[in-house]
């Protein structure tokens, strides 16, 4: 990964600020970023980290822009690709590309090869504080030195945390004796579910229990019912016995009452009701008889006091006829009589006034004429108005047109001819004026473009244009492809070199290890375990042979074997350390051998990649017309040259075409103009030496002809207007003649025949008024006639009324009517009273007859009901019938008691009943009832139990049962199954990773120490030649050799410790780059405490790093910039301000 460009778009105090680190086209990729204190170097440094890992929360750089608006951009080269990224301050999906599309974090994580923010910052982006802190850690020998050497430097610093996380996840699921693990919780949940399940399920055993309970309850119910039946029988027996005794007493009492009353047959069923009803009806009839007799007497008296008035009734009839009399027009007579009486005199005056007005108008129109002779109806007047008006309008129109015609004839001048060829001349002239083509300029431009194209193609083969594919530049490989292809080859070759170097170094290590092992093996002190074992066998064998014989030879043999064995054991014991060293060396040889194999594989892989990349480069080179094995640097220049040459050639071609077409077009237009001028009849000079002269001549001619054409057109339009006026004059005269004819026709036969239009129009208003007044007078005369007719009609009836009322003819109609109405009303009142009293008399007579008949009927009915009864003396029928009714009731009671006495023992054991009747204990009945109650309670309890048992079984069977819980259990188990697998797999992964990590660190420890040693020597100008590790009990500490003396890190100065820490990180960076590819190494003012000598050494080291990958040094010291430019060839300097 390489940082090409860092865009501080909105970050800290920066806005749209770019740090461009340029292309990686130098041998040494070192950039110094210089800026004064507070210029923002540290901010830019922080921006780089925030881009890689996201903005921390809270961020100290949100003082200018709110966090959500903050944005950092970067262009990052990945070795095979270029990523353009944006990082914002939003919480989610803060990483995007330059188009705003979300980019997964893992794209960066993969490029960082597992480094997290802390690891990157501590190992590969150092500042002075980190250097000091790191140095102190070395001095205090804190932590694991192996980890210090490798964590971060190897890119594995984030692993521990990742593995710790995995460990936590495993422990979250299951850990021995941990009660809050998911597994423990789930097992408790399972237990609870299973407990609930056993109570929810209706298994066969529970079913059987419920059924047994139900059966038991049924049996208990049957027993309770039997007990109840028995108790109820005893009570029944007791009741029968008691009832028998009670009935006998009642019968005796009733018989006694019957013996004391009168005899006779039983009354009919409704005897009492009949007697009561008849008695009431008879009483009511008697009261009615009395009342009707009173009414009859009163009516007779009233009739004798009233006298009828027949004349009054006649007046009423006459009044009724008058009040309903109407005229033909539907109007009532009496209102009109009243109107006539009040208005008729005034209306006769109005009629006279009209007659005088009409005569005055007649005199005005024609003196001495009677109004009736001058009357014209409305249609005639309208006809005269139209004809006279038309005549007057026609006369006025003729006069107006005559004046206009005379004026136009005076204004018309002599005739003018139109010019020839003007439109053609105008078109040709306009075409020439619009054409701005300058053939001379076009030709000059074409020549210039061609020269430019020739220059652009210089250096290219002669036939370059023929060999290019069509559609350029699209047919050429894209510039980015060329860049990437070249870079891929360069990178592959760099990796190949690195792999070769690694292999060589590892082979050397192997040779050294083999040599060390051979040296160890060559030492004669090496006694193997096998030799020891064999010597012991030899000694035991010799002893076994000696024991049976106990002779000298065997004793000697045993002694030799024993001594050899002892000697060998002594040597074995003395060389234990050598054997251990040999075993260690052998193990090291095997490990390094394995490493050699891996490195050889790496080299083969790198060589294959180089070959593939070379093939790609050759393919691209051939497309650009370059030979195979061309350097990658030639690709992009060649492409640029081809594109530039082709662009220039195409421009030249276009310019030449434009020049040719422009010249031809201009000539055609001038020729057309010349012809047009000649066609207007204008002679041309013999040799128009310049097109400008022709244009001037044509313009002058066009102007002159245009004026001539305008004059001719105006004269033509005036002549046309004169003709139109003459035509309109003739038409107006015709109209006037027609109007006169119409007026004459309208006047024929009228008293005013022969009048002209003006006289007619002058008298028309008077004639209109005359006609209107005449109509009004006629209407008034008609009304007067109607009033007079009403008075006459009234008088016909009024005379009879005056006669009856005995009043004179001078009595006004109103007074007459009032008197008549009063007399008629009184007569009607007397007549009505007479009728009423006569009706009353008739009605009362009828009622008296009916009441008398009703009284007789009631007496007959009562006699029939009480027939054959012996009645008490002086008793009314109502009283008597009630006594007889009581007698009949006693007779019925006696019959019922006798019957009940007979039924009381039915269905019972006669003996038992007899025995029960013999018992006279008063507590016997309550005791038996209590037994029944007790049996009923027992029966109800049993019944309830049966119901409960049945319901329990029903509810159990109708419940969901254990289905839901079973499902819960199954789901929990399935979840647990998956979680268990994943947790155990994680456990395996963690175990394997931790073991592998230990081996990895052990394997690489030596190489890291050597690299650190070299970097430290460079930084100290060789003052410190080597580094070693020393055991400190369970830990180790780092010591450096200076002048043959070992100095612990704790004894070094702070500056030296910082240098040592820097050396560690530089070595780590080199190792990381070798393993994972380039990664920017960034420092922020770490040289601040270095003197110039140390700073020079640090810059030399930076130069070495720059050859492996990108190195960025932030500083605010101007002298360091100068020093860097002096010591680092090709260093790039950027300024921050």
């Amino acid at each position: 990964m390489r940082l090409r460009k860092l865009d501080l778009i909105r970050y800290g105090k920066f806005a749209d600020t770019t740090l461009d680190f340029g292309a990686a086209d130098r041998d040494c990729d070192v950039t110094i970023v210089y800026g004064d204190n507070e210029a923002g170097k540290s901010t830019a440094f922080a921006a780089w980290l925030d881009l890689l890992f996201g903005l921390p929360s809270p961020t100290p750089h949100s003082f200018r822009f709110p966090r959500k608006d903050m944005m950092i951009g970067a262009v990052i080269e990945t070795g095979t690709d270029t990523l353009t990224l944006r990082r914002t301050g939003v919480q989610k999906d803060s990483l995007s590309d330059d188009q705003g599309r979300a980019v997964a974090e893992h794209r960066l994580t993969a490029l960082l090869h597992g480094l997290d923010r802390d690891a990157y910052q501590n190992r590969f982006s150092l500042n002075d504080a980190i250097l000091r802190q790191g140095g102190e850690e070395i001095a205090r020998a804190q932590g694991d030195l192996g980890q210090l050497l490798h964590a971060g430097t190897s890119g594995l610093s984030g692993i521990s945390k990742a593995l710790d996380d995995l460990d936590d996840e495993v422990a979250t699921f299951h850990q021995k004796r941990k009660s809050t693990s998911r597994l423990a919780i789930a097992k408790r949940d399972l237990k609870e579910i299973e407990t609930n399940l056993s109570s929810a399920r209706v298994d066969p055993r529970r079913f059987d229990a419920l059924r047994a309970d139900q059966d038991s309850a049924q049996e208990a119910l049957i027993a309770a019912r039997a007990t109840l039946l028995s108790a109820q029988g005893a009570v029944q027996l007791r009741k029968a016995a008691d009832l028998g005794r009670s009935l006998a007493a009642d019968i005796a009492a009733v018989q006694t009452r019957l013996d004391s009353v009168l005899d006779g047959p039983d009354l009919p069923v409704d005897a009492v009701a009949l007697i009561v009803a008849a008695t009431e009806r008879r009483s009511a009839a008697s009261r009615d008889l009395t009342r009707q007799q009173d009414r009859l007497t009163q009516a007779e008296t009233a009739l004798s006091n009233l006298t009828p008035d027949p004349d009054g009734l006649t007046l009423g009839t006459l009044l009724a006829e008058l009040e309903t009399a109407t005229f033909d027009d539907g109007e009532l007579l009496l209102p009109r009589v009243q109107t006539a009486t009040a208005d008729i005199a005034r209306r006769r005056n109005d009629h006279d006034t009209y007659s005088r007005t009409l005569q005055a108008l007649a005199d005005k129109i024609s003196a001495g004429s009677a109004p009736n002779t001058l009357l014209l109806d409305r249609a005639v007047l309208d006809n005269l108005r139209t004809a006279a008006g038309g005549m007057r309008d026609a006369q006025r129109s003729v006069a107006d047109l005559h004046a206009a015609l005379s004026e136009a004839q005076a204004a018309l001048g002599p005739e003018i001819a139109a010019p020839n060829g003007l439109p053609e001349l105008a078109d040709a002239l306009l075409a020439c004026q619009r054409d701005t083509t300058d053939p001379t300029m076009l030709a000059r431009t074409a020549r210039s473009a061609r020269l430019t194209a020739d220059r652009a193609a210089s250096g290219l083969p002669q036939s370059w244009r023929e060999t290019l594919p069509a559609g350029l530049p699209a047919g050429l490989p894209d510039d980015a492809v060329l860049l990437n292809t070249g870079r891929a080859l360069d990178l592959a070759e760099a990796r190949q070199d690195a792999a070769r170097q690694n292999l060589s170094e590892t082979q050397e290590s192997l040779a050294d290890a083999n040599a060390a092992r051979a040296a160890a093996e060559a030492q004669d002190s090496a006694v193997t375990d096998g030799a020891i074992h064999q010597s012991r066998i030899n000694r035991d064998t010799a002893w076994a042979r000696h024991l049976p014989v106990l002779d000298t030879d065997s004793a000697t043999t045993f002694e030799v074997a024993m001594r050899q064995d002892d000697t060998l054991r002594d040597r074995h014991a003395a060389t234990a350390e050598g054997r251990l060293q040999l075993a260690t060396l052998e193990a090291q040889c095997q490990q390094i051998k394995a490493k050699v194999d891996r490195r050889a594989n790496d080299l083969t892989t790198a060589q294959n990649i180089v070959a593939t990349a070379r093939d790609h480069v050759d393919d691209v080179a051939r497309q650009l017309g370059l030979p195979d094995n061309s350097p990658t640097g030639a690709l992009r220049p060649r492409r640029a040259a081809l594109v530039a040459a082709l662009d220039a050639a195409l421009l030249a071609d276009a310019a030449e075409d434009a020049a040719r077409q422009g010249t031809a077009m201009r000539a055609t237009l001038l020729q057309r103009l010349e012809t047009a001028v000649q066609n207007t009849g204008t002679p041309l000079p013999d040799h128009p030496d310049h097109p400008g002269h022709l244009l001037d001549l044509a313009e002058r001619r066009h102007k002159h002809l245009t004026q001539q054409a305008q004059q001719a057109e105006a004269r033509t339009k005036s002549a046309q207007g004169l003709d139109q006026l003459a035509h309109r004059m003739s038409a107006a005269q015709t109209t006037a003649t027609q109007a006169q004819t119409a007026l004459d026709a309208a006047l024929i036969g009228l008293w005013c025949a022969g009048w002209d239009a003006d006289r007619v129009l002058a008298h028309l208003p008077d004639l209109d008024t005359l006609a209107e007044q005449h109509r009004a007078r006629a209407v008034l005369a008609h009304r007067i006639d109607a009033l007079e007719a009403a008075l006459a009609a009234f008088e016909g009836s009024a005379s009879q009324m005056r006669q009856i009322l005995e009043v004179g003819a001078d009595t006004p109609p109103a007074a007459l009517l009032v008197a008549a109405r009063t007399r008629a009303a009184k007569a009607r009142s007397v007549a009505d009273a007479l009728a009423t009293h006569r009706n009353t008399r008739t009605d009362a007579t009828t009622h008296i007859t009916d009441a008398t008949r009703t009284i007789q009927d009631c007496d007959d009915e009562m006699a029939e009901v009480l027939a054959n009864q012996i009645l008490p003396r002086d008793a009314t029928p109502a009283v008597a019938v009630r006594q007889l009714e009581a007698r009949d009731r006693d007779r019925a009671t006696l019959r019922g008691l006798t019957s009940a006495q007979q039924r009381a023992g039915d269905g019972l054991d006669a003996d038992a009943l007899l025995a029960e009747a013999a018992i006279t204990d008063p507590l016997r009945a309550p005791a038996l009832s209590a037994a029944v109650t007790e049996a009923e309670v027992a029966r109800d309890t049993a019944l309830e139990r049966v119901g409960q048992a049945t319901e329990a079984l029903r509810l159990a069977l109708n419940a969901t049962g254990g289905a839901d819980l079973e499902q819960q259990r199954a789901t929990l188990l399935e979840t647990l199954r998956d979680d268990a697998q994943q947790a155990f797999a994680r456990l395996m992964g963690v175990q394997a990773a931790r073991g592998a990590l230990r081996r990895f660190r052990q394997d690489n420890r030596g190489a890291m120490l050597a690299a650190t040693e070299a970097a430290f020597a460079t930084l100290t100008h060789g003052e410190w030649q080597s580094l070693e590790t020393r055991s400190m009990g369970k830990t180790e500490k780092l010591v450096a050799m200076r002048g043959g003396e070992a100095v612990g890190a704790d004894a070094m100065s702070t500056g030296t410790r910082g240098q040592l820490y820097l050396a560690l990180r530089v070595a780590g960076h080199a190792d990381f780059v070798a393993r994972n590819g380039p990664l920017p190494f960034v420092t922020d003012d770490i040289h601040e405490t270095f003197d110039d000598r140390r700073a020079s050494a640090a810059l030399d080291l930076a130069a070495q790093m720059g050859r492996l990958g990108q190195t960025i040094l932030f500083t605010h010291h101007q002298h360091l910039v100068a020093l860097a430019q002096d010591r680092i060839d090709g260093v790039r300097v950027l300024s921050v301000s």
Partner: protein
Amino acid sequence: MRFLHAADLHLDSPLRSQALRNPDLAARLHAASRSALARIVDAAIDHKVDALLLAGDVFDSGVVDLTSRAALAAEMGRLARAGIPAALIRGNHDALLDFARYGPIADNVTLLDADAPTLRIGDASIHGLGFSTRHVTSSMLPLYPQPEPGRINVGLMHTSLGGSAGHDRYAPCAEADLLAHGYEYWALGHIHQRFERRSDTSLAVMPGIPQGRSIRETGAGTATLVDIDLNGIRATEVPIALLRFVRQGVDLGGADSQAAVIDILSQTLQSARQDDCDIALRLDLQGGDTLTGDPAFARTLADEAAQGISGVYVEAVRLAPGQTRTPPGTLADLAAIMAQDIATPGFRDEATALLAEWQKALPRDIADTLAPDQLDDLMQQGLDIALARLTGGAPDA
């Protein structure tokens, strides 16, 4: 004549899937097998069948609960009210069909057995035999009545036929013998995957389980509607299942971001939707590289993809082994060392001991999850998870 044929209801046997962790789905699938039975009865009524045939394993021997029997009685009562009889035989799970102990199911239900092997309905004679023993090792076919001439003969048999993986061997019977027995239709049961066998004159149908219970039962979940008339014998599937289990391989090759992975998974889930039932989808992922190297993280992505998609639920996510590829460099070296280490006897011994300890800690029902034969897979899976985590492919999951 028209029949509806189903078998292997396994009433109240629970569904075994993590998909039911989703509370909505769990609520909808409440008593799923009972709902499936209700759907079967609905179908019988809707299609106006002459009889419902249930060819064994109405119940599940793992769930001995009389409420299951009550549920069956309720549904058969509904069937009776529609005037439809039902014929049943015992399967190897049907202890609850013991009429002598628990009483009859309903008036319209006839349990066919050796004492009364034939039920006549209209023109059809329905023959069936069931046994009360859990294991029947010999063929029951010779015990079946001979076909009745002039009538439609239908046989109900619970049998493993020639044998089927994952199913007990029960009343084995050769298919050819079955088809040659002279019955027009054989309503079979026992094997949970549907299939048909046909000869010129006979059709035998194994209808499969109507409601699959786990990812091992991925059938369509149907009952079989059978029409037998002059035009021959026709069998049609009638959808029953409320939830179908489906395995779906997903190739994530080319997905270069988590968003792209989610997009592919979302499309997969969308395309799996069905109108008539919910889907529990087992996703077998391949090619996801470091994006999905950790199954837990892959599950998180799948759950994210399932957001807003109704009717489809993630049953589980499985990754092809060896998915995680590390870029050349330190991690690749580390990965190689890890691969070497787990193959060493020392590591295996330690892992085996741990596995035994963990297996002991698990509930007995799922102890097989960490059986010794699982060790290789678990170690490989662990390697993939660790590498995925170390390469940063999976953030904290």
